């Protein structure tokens, strides 16, 4: 792992966020977290719900996993166990959050609660935790990186939800309806996101 960036200047943070959200969009540039995205993007409402839950979980687990990695795995020379350890941390964290939300905010639980178990196995979240290791980030930047990555996913699924709501009102050839047209839309969207690539290098 490279040395942390110099300082926590505001500009760096904005750059980290934007690069994670747009140039390295986890859904459209890396094609991770596709299963829950295809399943839940039928409506904008649910897309926003799941997206918000993903933002929260990616940011928190990126930070948590950063701590676990630097303070547990590196000193013990167990870096090669990062994948399985991260999965366990993410799963436990999601369970924990579900309990807290259920107990203290029934409204939030009804809005987000049902999405939380879906997230446990969302590879976008594991992806963010693994990609942060290739970046020269410190703790705070990692958190922002997770936040940005989650936001990118949220942004992509909301876009997709909006487009699918429109598409549902039109008549499609039978073979194209459903997952077919959705994958094509994702392809076109990701072409658009290629335009961002190389804009920022961090």
């Amino acid at each position: 792992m490279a040395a942390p960036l110099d300082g926590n200047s505001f500009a760096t943070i904005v750059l980290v966020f934007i690069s994670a959200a747009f140039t390295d969009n986890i859904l459209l540039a890396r094609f991770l977290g596709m299963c829950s995205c295809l399943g839940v993007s039928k409506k904008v409402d649910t897309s926003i719900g799941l997206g918000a839950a993903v933002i929260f979980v990616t940011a928190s687990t990126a930070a948590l996993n950063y701590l676990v990695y630097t303070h547990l795995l590196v000193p013990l020379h167990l870096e090669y166990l990062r994948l399985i350890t991260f999965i366990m941390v993410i799963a436990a964290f999601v369970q924990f959050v579900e309990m807290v939300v259920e107990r203290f905010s029934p409204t939030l639980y009804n809005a987000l609660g049902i999405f939380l178990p879906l997230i446990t196995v969302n590879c976008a979240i594991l992806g963010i935790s693994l990609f942060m290791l290739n970046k020269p980030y410190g703790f705070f930047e990692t958190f922002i990186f997770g936040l940005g990555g989650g936001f990118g996913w949220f942004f992509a699924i909301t876009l997709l939800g909006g487009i699918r709501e429109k598409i549902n009102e039109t008549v499609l050839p039978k073979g194209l309806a459903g997952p077919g047209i959705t994958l094509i839309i994702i392809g076109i969207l990701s072409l658009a996101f290629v335009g961002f690539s190389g804009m920022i290098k961090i």
Partner: protein
Amino acid sequence: MIAEVLISAAFLTGTGIILSALLVFAEKKILNYGPCTIDINNGEKKYTVTGGTSLLASLAANDIFIPSACGGRGSCAYCKVSVLEGGGVISPVEEPYLSDEERKQQVRLSCQVKVRNDLKIKIPKELFSVKKFRGILEHKKPLTHDILELRIQLVEPDSIDFTAGRYIQLESKEYKGKDAVIRAYSISSSPSDKTHIELIIRRVPDGICTTWVFDHLKEKEEVTFSGPHGEFNLSDTDAPIICIAGGSGMAPIRSILRDMKEKGIMRPTTYFFGALTQNDLFYVSELQKLAEEHPWFTHIPALSNEPEDSGWQGERGLITNVVAKHFPDTSKHEAYLCGSPGMINACVQVLTKGGMPEDRIFYDKFA
């Protein structure tokens, strides 16, 4: 090398244990709602339960059994109850199962309502008398190629009180990767036989419960069920009766007929039994005997798919046509139907066309 393997194994086990322990601890601490009271029908019954589990499970722990077939997964929508206070908002799982009318009456799926605080609920009074029964399968007798008669001897509790026409919910056991399920079957035996119940079960291709009954359940084995459920029973008017049922739908009708015989109720009754061929008829001699001994009863089997040259002397054709032929005017009658939704809808159409008001048609739909 070995040290490395051991360290990583130890690390993973340790992390797993620590995380699980934290979660268990958190669940105890965070999801502890303390004692909550459930007030049923405005103070008629009150229970204090430990919060955190579903309303369905909390009621079951207090011997109130709300009908439920899916085991609390929120997919059968049988377990509806009115939650007047403390139910919280309707969860997305419940959304598709609740009509506008039900929302107005604050109906919820009790398996999806978690007891988090004091609740006020309303349930049909007769659910208080629903019990869980354990029994022994006394015999399993084929009636046709795809219909079985089950006779269950009650063990704990050892007797049952029910009105003819009620159904029970039979619990299947796990087999070959299939989950245990609960399915409703009408009681076909007479209410006077309090120590046994009889069921008529038709094999549903790939049905989880009927496959269990047909292929896995053996005589002398233990079975569990809850009951009596339902609102299907003979009214207390004097109107002449038309019964229509085919296949295993005969069960509640048979129970009602036996009950009428025993109690000396002599309302003119005609029972139309719809089947495909002669091979699908059953209890023929029992019903014939009843008709011979009791002038108030007429049995009319009708076959829709019997070969022309079979020598069948009885009625032929669709059951609805046969009913219309015998009763062009149904305005004075009451009707009792049991069968598939399609058959019931067709019969209701024919009966109302003959002048029968819809509130005098009683039925049990088995999907």
